[in-house]
C-alpha cells in the first residue's frame, strides 16, 4: 500500500532514432499474423509473447509476469526501404529547402548564421517569437539558389501531399524536368546536415536528427496497447492497430522478397508506395490527400493520431478527465427540512459507497461493530485492509473471523454515514459552485435530497435532474473539502460578490406574508412555526397586541427572532412605490442615527425595510432581504456574522417562511387574472386606438407622406414607428391591468416581491400578449408578402404581422396561436445555439487562464513566473470578499462602528 512517491519533474520530447528503436525492442516482428489455429500467439507474429501477454494464463517471455502485471514491451519491424513519417513530412520539406543538396549545410552565410544564433539566444523559450524566427530563416535559405558554403547550384523542391517530394531540376541545356525524390534519397540528404546547423532549422541535434524523420525501423507497440477482444461467438476481433500492422508487415515482406529477387524498378516502387501508404495511415488515418484505410465493414480505422485527438481522445478523454470509483448518480428531489450543507443519500447508495477509516483505540468498538454488520446490514462495511495492505472483502461467512482479527492499524472501508463529507455535482459544471461539499444524511427511498436554497448554484430543478456524488477517500481530501468546499463557504458568489445561495420562490412570498403590515399570529401559531423552523427561544417576546383577549404577535416580531441581536440595516425594498414615505424614514434615521422604536413604528412603511438592533421595525422582507443576487440582509449576515451563522439563518428563514406559506395558503389560479369589465373595455379601446394609429401610419407611408428617420429607409421607418406604437399599446394595456390587480392577488405578490415572474407575465395573462417578434422585427416570413394565408398579401396591419391582442386567459385565435409559436420557436433555437457557443468560449477562457494564480507577494503570475498583474485586481481584494465589487464599503463600516459605539440603549 505504501509506496515511494515519485515526482515527475519534466518531460522531454524527441524523435526515436533507429538505434533506439532496436534497443528498446523485445522482438523483431516478421510474420504478418497473430494467432495460430489453436489460438496460440505465433512467434515473430504481432501477438508475440515477448511483446507482453493479454491472455490469462500465459506468461510474458520478456519479464515473466502474467497478464495484468506485465506492462508490455515494444517490438520492431525492419523496413525494406525507408519511409517518410507523415507527421514530419512538412518539416522534411522545409529542411530540404533550407539546406544545400550537395554539402548539407544550411544555405546561410557564416555571418547570417552568427546573427541568427544570437537572435535565438535573445528569444529564449518564447514560442511565437521562435516560430517566427524559424520561418524567417527558412524563407531566406530557400531563396538562395547557390550554396554559400560549397557553391553548388540548388533546385526548388516541390512537396506533394502527403509524402512525395519532387526536385525541379534543370539539365545542362537548361531544360526543366521533375525528379521524384524517393525517401532513401531524402534520407541521404538529411544525413548530411551537420549538427551545428540544426538549431537554426528548429531541430535539436541530440533529440531529433532530421534523418530520423524518415523511418527505417518501425516500432511495434506492445500487445497491451492493442488487445484483441473475444466476441461471444468465440471469434477473435483484432484491434485496429494490429490490422494496420499486419498490412505493413505483409507489404514489407513482399517488398523485401521482390528486392531480393531483383524485380523491376517499377514494381519495387509501386510496392514502396504501397508500404508508404500503410505506414502513413498507421500514423494518421485522416491525412488529407489519401483515402483513409477502412475496416472490412467500411468503418475507417482508428489509428495512432485518432487515439490521441479530440474530445474522446487520450488527452481530453482519458487524461484530463477520468472515470472514477466511489461515485453515485441518481435523480434529485427537494427536502426543505435538511440544512443547506446536507445531502440526503438513499440507503442503497450509502451501502455501496465506502469511506476508509483507520482503526484507532477511539473508534475500535464502533468499527468492529461495522465489520460484524458486514455489507448487507446498514451501518456496516464492505472491505477491510490489513496492515500489510491486503484488501479483504467482507462476506456473510467471514465477518466474525475478520472482526476478531481487527486491530489498530487496520483500515475499515465502512458504509457512508451521517455527517460524512461528500462532493455533490451537477453538470454542466460551469463554475466552481457546481461542485460543493455536503454532509451526508442517509435517508430511505432512492433519490438524492437537497435543500431548495442550493438549487441556484447548481442550476438544478426537480423535473428529473440527476446529480453525481463523490466520496473523498483520504483525510487530506476530506479536510480540504470540509474547509474549502462546504456549501456555506459559497453563499457569496465570486462572480459579483453577492449571495448566490439564497431563498427563492415560496421563501420570498412567505417572507412577505409573514412580515407585511397587518400580519398577526396567535400563540399556538407562533409556537408551531418556531418549532417547525427550529428557532430556539427561552420565552416568547411580549405580544404586540391583544384582540378580544387573544394575544397576537406580529410577523415582524417573529422574524426578528432569527436575526442577530445587534444587526442594524435599512434599505428600500422592491415594494417601495412611494418614495416620500421612504424619504421620511431615511431622514429620521439620518438625524437620530438610533431613533426611538415608537417613532419608527409610526412611520413604518412596507416599502422600506428597517432593522434596528435585530428588530424588524418597518417594511417587509422580500427578494432584497435574502433573495439571489440582491439579498442585502443575507449578505450582511454572511460578512459580519460568518458563514455558519448565515447557514443557520438561511435554514431557519426558509423553514419559517414555508410554514407560513403552507398554513396561510398560497396559490395562483385563473381567477387571479380576472379583470372587471370596465378594465377590459379600456384595454379594447387601447387596442382599437393602436390599430387605428398603425393604419394611419401605413396610409401615410403609402401616400408617400412619411418622413424617413435619419439613416433609415422608408420601410424601416414605418416598421420602427409601428413597433413603437404597438409596444406602447401593450404597456398601456398592462398598466390598466396592473391598476385593477392589487396586493391581495397572489400572482401580483409573487411578481412584486421578486419571488417569481414579472408584472409583464401577469399582464400577458390578463390583458394581452402584444407583438410577437423574430430577430427584433415584426413577423414577416411565410408566404409571399404575408405570414399566413388568412391575410392579404402586402397587408402591413398590426394583426397580420404578429400583434396578438388576446391574453392567455381570453385565449388566442388560431392565427395568433401560430404567431406565438413562431416567436417561441426563435427562443428555443436561440438557446440551443447559445449553449454550444458559450460552452466553447468558456473552454477557451479556462484553457487560457487556468494557470494564473496569486503569489505570496500579491502578484498574479503565470507558471513561468511572468507577472501578469502587480496587485491582483489593482487592489488585491478577493471579489468574493469584496462588497459587491468595492474594496471596502466605507459607509457601512462607519455606520456599523458608530452604532456599536453609540447605538445600543
Amino acid at each position: 500500500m505504501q509506496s515511494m512517491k515519485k515526482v515527475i519533474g519534466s518531460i522531454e520530447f524527441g524523435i526515436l532514432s533507429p538505434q533506439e528503436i532496436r534497443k528498446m525492442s523485445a522482438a523483431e516482428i516478421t510474420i504478418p499474423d497473430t494467432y495460430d489455429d489453436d489460438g496460440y500467439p505465433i512467434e515473430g507474429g504481432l501477438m508475440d509473447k515477448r511483446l507482453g501477454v493479454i491472455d490469462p494464463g500465459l506468461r510474458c517471455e520478456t519479464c515473466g509476469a502474467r497478464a495484468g502485471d506485465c506492462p508490455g514491451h515494444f517490438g520492431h519491424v525492419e523496413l525494406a526501404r525507408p519511409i517518410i513519417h507523415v507527421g514530419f513530412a512538412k518539416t522534411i520539406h522545409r529542411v530540404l529547402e533550407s539546406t544545400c543538396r550537395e554539402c548539407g549545410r544550411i544555405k546561410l552565410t557564416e555571418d547570417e548564421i552568427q546573427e541568427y544564433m544570437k537572435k535565438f539566444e535573445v528569444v529564449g523559450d518564447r514560442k511565437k517569437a521562435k516560430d517566427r524566427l524559424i520561418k524567417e530563416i527558412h524563407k531566406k535559405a530557400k531563396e538562395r539558389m547557390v550554396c554559400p558554403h560549397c557553391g553548388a547550384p540548388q533546385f526548388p523542391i516541390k512537396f506533394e501531399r502527403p509524402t512525395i517530394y519532387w526536385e525541379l531540376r534543370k539539365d545542362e541545356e537548361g531544360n526543366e524536368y521533375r525528379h521524384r525524390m524517393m525517401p532513401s534519397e531524402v534520407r541521404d540528404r538529411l544525413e548530411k546536415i551537420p549538427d551545428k546547423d540544426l538549431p537554426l532549422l528548429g531541430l535539436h541535434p541530440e533529440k531529433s536528427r532530421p534523418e530520423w524523420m524518415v523511418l527505417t525501423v518501425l516500432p511495434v507497440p506492445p500487445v497491451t496497447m492493442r488487445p484483441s477482444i473475444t466476441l461471444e461467438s468465440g471469434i477473435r476481433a483484432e484491434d485496429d492497430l494490429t490490422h494496420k500492422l499486419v498490412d505493413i508487415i505483409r507489404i514489407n515482406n513482399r517488398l523485401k522478397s521482390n528486392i531480393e529477387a531483383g524485380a523491376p524498378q517499377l514494381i519495387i516502387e509501386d510496392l514502396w508506395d504501397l508500404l508508404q501508404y500503410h505506414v502513413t495511415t498507421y500514423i494518421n488515418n485522416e491525412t488529407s490527400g489519401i483515402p483513409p484505410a477502412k475496416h472490412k465493414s467500411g468503418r475507417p480505422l482508428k489509428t495512432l493520431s485518432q487515439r490521441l485527438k479530440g474530445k474522446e481522445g487520450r488527452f481530453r478523454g482519458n487524461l484530463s478527465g477520468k472515470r472514477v470509483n466511489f461515485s453515485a448518480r441518481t435523480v434529485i428531489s427537494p427536502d426543505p427540512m435538511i440544512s443547506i450543507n446536507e445531502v440526503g443519500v438513499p440507503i442503497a447508495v450509502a451501502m455501496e459507497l465506502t469511506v476508509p477509516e483507520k482503526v484507532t483505540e477511539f473508534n475500535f468498538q464502533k468499527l468492529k461493530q461495522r465489520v460484524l454488520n458486514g455489507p448487507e446490514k446498514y451501518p456496516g462495511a464492505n472491505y477491510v485492509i490489513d496492515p500489510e495492505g491486503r484488501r479483504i472483502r467482507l462476506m456473510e461467512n467471514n465477518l466474525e473471523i475478520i472482526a476478531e482479527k481487527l486491530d489498530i492499524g487496520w483500515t475499515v472501508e465502512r458504509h457512508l454515514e451521517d455527517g460524512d463529507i461528500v462532493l455533490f455535482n451537477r453538470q454542466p459544471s460551469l463554475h466552481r459552485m457546481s461542485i460543493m461539499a455536503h454532509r451526508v444524511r442517509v435517508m430511505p427511498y432512492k433519490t438524492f435530497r437537497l435543500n431548495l436554497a442550493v438549487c441556484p448554484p447548481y442550476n438544478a430543478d426537480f423535473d428529473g435532474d440527476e446529480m453525481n456524488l463523490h466520496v473523498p477517500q483520504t483525510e487530506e481530501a476530506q479536510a480540504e473539502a470540509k474547509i474549502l468546499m462546504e456549501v456555506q463557504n459559497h453563499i457569496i458568489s465570486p462572480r459579483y460578490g453577492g449571495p448566490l445561495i439564497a431563498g427563492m420562490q415560496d421563501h420570498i412570498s412567505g417572507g412577505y406574508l409573514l412580515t407585511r403590515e397587518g400580519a398577526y399570529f396567535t400563540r399556538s401559531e407562533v409556537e408551531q412555526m418556531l418549532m417547525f423552523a427550529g428557532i430556539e427561544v427561552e420565552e416568547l417576546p411580549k405580544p404586540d397586541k391583544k384582540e378580544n383577549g387573544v394575544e397576537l404577535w406580529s410577523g415582524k416580531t417573529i422574524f426578528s427572532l432569527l436575526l442577530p441581536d445587534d444587526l442594524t440595516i435599512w434599505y428600500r425594498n422592491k415594494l417601495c412605490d412611494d418614495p416620500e414615505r421612504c424619504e421620511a424614514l431615511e431622514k429620521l434615521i439620518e438625524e437620530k442615527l438610533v431613533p426611538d422604536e415608537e417613532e419608527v413604528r409610526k412611520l413604518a412603511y412596507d416599502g422600506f425595510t428597517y432593522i434596528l438592533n435585530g428588530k424588524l421595525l418597518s417594511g417587509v422582507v422580500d427578494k432584497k432581504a435574502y433573495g439571489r443576487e440582491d439579498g442585502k440582509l443575507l449578505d450582511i449576515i454572511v460578512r459580519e456574522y460568518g458563514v455558519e451563522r448565515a447557514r443557520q439563518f438561511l435554514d431557519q428563514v426558509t423553514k419559517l417562511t414555508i410554514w407560513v406559506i403552507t398554513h396561510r395558503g398560497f396559490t395562483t389560479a385563473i381567477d387571479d387574472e380576472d379583470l372587471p369589465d370596465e378594465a377590459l373595455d379600456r384595454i379594447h379601446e387601447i387596442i382599437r386606438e393602436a390599430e387605428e394609429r398603425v393604419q394611419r401610419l401605413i396610409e401615410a407611408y403609402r401616400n408617400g407622406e412619411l418622413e424617413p428617420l435619419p439613416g433609415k429607409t422608408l420601410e424601416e421607418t414605418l416598421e420602427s414607428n409601428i413597433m413603437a406604437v404597438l409596444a406602447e399599446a401593450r404597456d398601456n394595456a398592462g398598466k390598466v391591468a396592473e391598476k385593477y390587480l392589487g396586493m391581495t392577488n397572489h400572482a401580483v405578490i409573487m411578481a412584486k416581491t421578486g419571488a417569481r415572474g414579472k408584472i409583464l407575465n401577469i399582464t400577458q395573462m390578463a390583458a394581452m400578449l402584444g407583438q410577437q417578434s423574430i430577430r427584433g422585427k415584426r413577423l414577416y416570413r411565410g408566404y409571399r408578402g404575408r405570414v399566413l394565408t388568412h391575410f392579404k398579401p402586402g397587408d402591413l396591419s398590426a394583426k397580420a404581422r404578429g400583434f396578438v391582442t388576446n391574453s392567455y386567459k381570453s385565449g388566442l385565435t388560431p392565427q395568433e396561436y401560430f404567431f406565438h409559436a413562431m416567436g417561441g420557436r426563435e427562443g428555443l433555437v436561440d438557446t440551443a445555439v447559445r449553449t454550444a457557443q458559450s460552452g466553447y468560449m468558456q473552454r477557451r477562457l479556462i484553457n487560457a487562464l487556468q494557470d494564473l494564480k496569486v503569489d505570496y507577494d500579491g502578484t498574479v503570475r503565470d507558471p513561468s513566473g511572468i507577472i501578469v498583474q502587480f496587485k491582483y485586481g489593482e487592489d488585491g481584494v478577493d471579489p468574493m470578499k469584496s462588497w459587491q465589487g468595492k474594496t471596502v464599503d466605507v459607509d457601512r463600516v462607519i455606520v456599523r462602528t458608530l452604532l456599536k459605539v453609540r447605538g445600543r440603549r
Partner: protein
Amino acid sequence: MVAAKTIKTLVNKSELPDNIKEELYNKLIEYNKKYKLKKAEVEAIIEETVKEYKKALIEPGEAIGTVAAQSIGEPSTQMTLNTFHYAGVAEINVTLGLPRVIEIVDARKNPSTPIMTVYLDEKHRYDREKALEVARRIEGTSLENLAREMSLDILNYEFVVEIDPERLQKSGLDMEKVQRKLESSFKSAEFETEGYVLIMRPKKVGKLSDLRRLSEKVKKHRLKGLSGVRKTIIRKEGDEYVIYTEGSNFKQVLKVPGVDPTKTRTNNIWEIAEVLGIEAARNAIIEEIVNTMREQGLEVDLRHIMLVADMMTLDGVILPIGRHGIVGEKASVLARAAFEITTQHLFEAAERGEVDPLNGVVENVLIGQPVPVGTGIVKLAMNLPLRPKRE
C-alpha cells in the same frame, strides 16, 4: 467634533491603500458634520476599516484565472444571441450579447459593427450646423451613395449615373467637384457632366466586362470623407452634439478639424492599440466587456474582466484567447496538446526536442500530480509520531 486635520493624520497613519484612505477621509468629514464624531470614534472607525480591508485581501495561491474564466463563461450562457440590438443610438446597429463578447475575446481585427463616437471641440460642440460640417468631413461618400440611378450604356460604351440633387447637396459636394475628383483618380477614362447626369467614358474601347469592372470601381470610389466610415448620425447629448459613425477609422478621424481627439472613441480594439497603444487597448477591452455584460443585466466583478484584458495584452500586442493566441503560445507542450490540434503540437515538440517543465495546471492533471495552485502550492511534510501499539 474632531478637526478635519486630526482626521487626516489619523487616516494617513493607517495601513490602507490610497484610494480607500481618500474615500474614508471624505466620508469621515461628511459624517463628522452630521454626527459630530469623537476622536475615539474616528479611531474605532479607522481600525474597523483596516480590519475589513485586511479580511478582504485575496489569499496566496488562489486560482483566480479559473475563477475569472468561470465568472465570464457562466453568465454568458444566459446572454441573448440577438445580434442586433439598439444601444443608445436607435439608428445604428451594434453587435451585443454573446456574439460581442466572443468577438472581443477572439480579438477580431474587424468587428462586425465598428462604431465611433466622435466628440467635438469647443467651437463645434454646441451648434448643430457646425457639427454637421464636421460630420460631412467624416462621412465617406461614394458615387453610389449619391446616385439615383446608374446604368451602363452598352451602345456608346458609357457608364451613366443620374445623381440625386438632394443627396448631393446634403453631402456638401457639387457636380464640378465630383467630376474633378473622379478625373484626378481615374486617368483611363473621361468624365462629363450634364446637369445632374454624370457620364464616364473609358478612353480605350474594350470589352464589356472591362467597362463593368471600371464602373464598379468608380461607383465605390470615395469622393470625400474617411474610408471605412459609412454613415454618420448627429445626436444631442446634454448640451453638446456628438457624432456617431457606422464604420470606424480612428486614426484618420482624430486628425479631422473640429474633432476633440481626447474624448473621441471607437469600439475597434485593434485600432485603439495601433493609435493609442496597448494600455489603451487593455482599457478598451475592459470597458467593452463591462458594457456588454451590463447591457445584458449581468453582474461580473471588474477584477475578472481586468485579468482577461491583462492576459490578452501582456505581450504588447493583442492576443486572442484560443488556439492562435494565449493557449497556442503556452510554454507547455502538454497544455497545448490538451487544448486543440493535439498531434501537430506533439510532432512539433518532438522535432524541437522541447522539454515540458510541468508547472501548469493541465500538465499536472494529465500526469496525475497535484496541481500548482491553491492548496497545491504548499510544500510541507511532517513526520507524525506513531502511537504505540495497544496491548
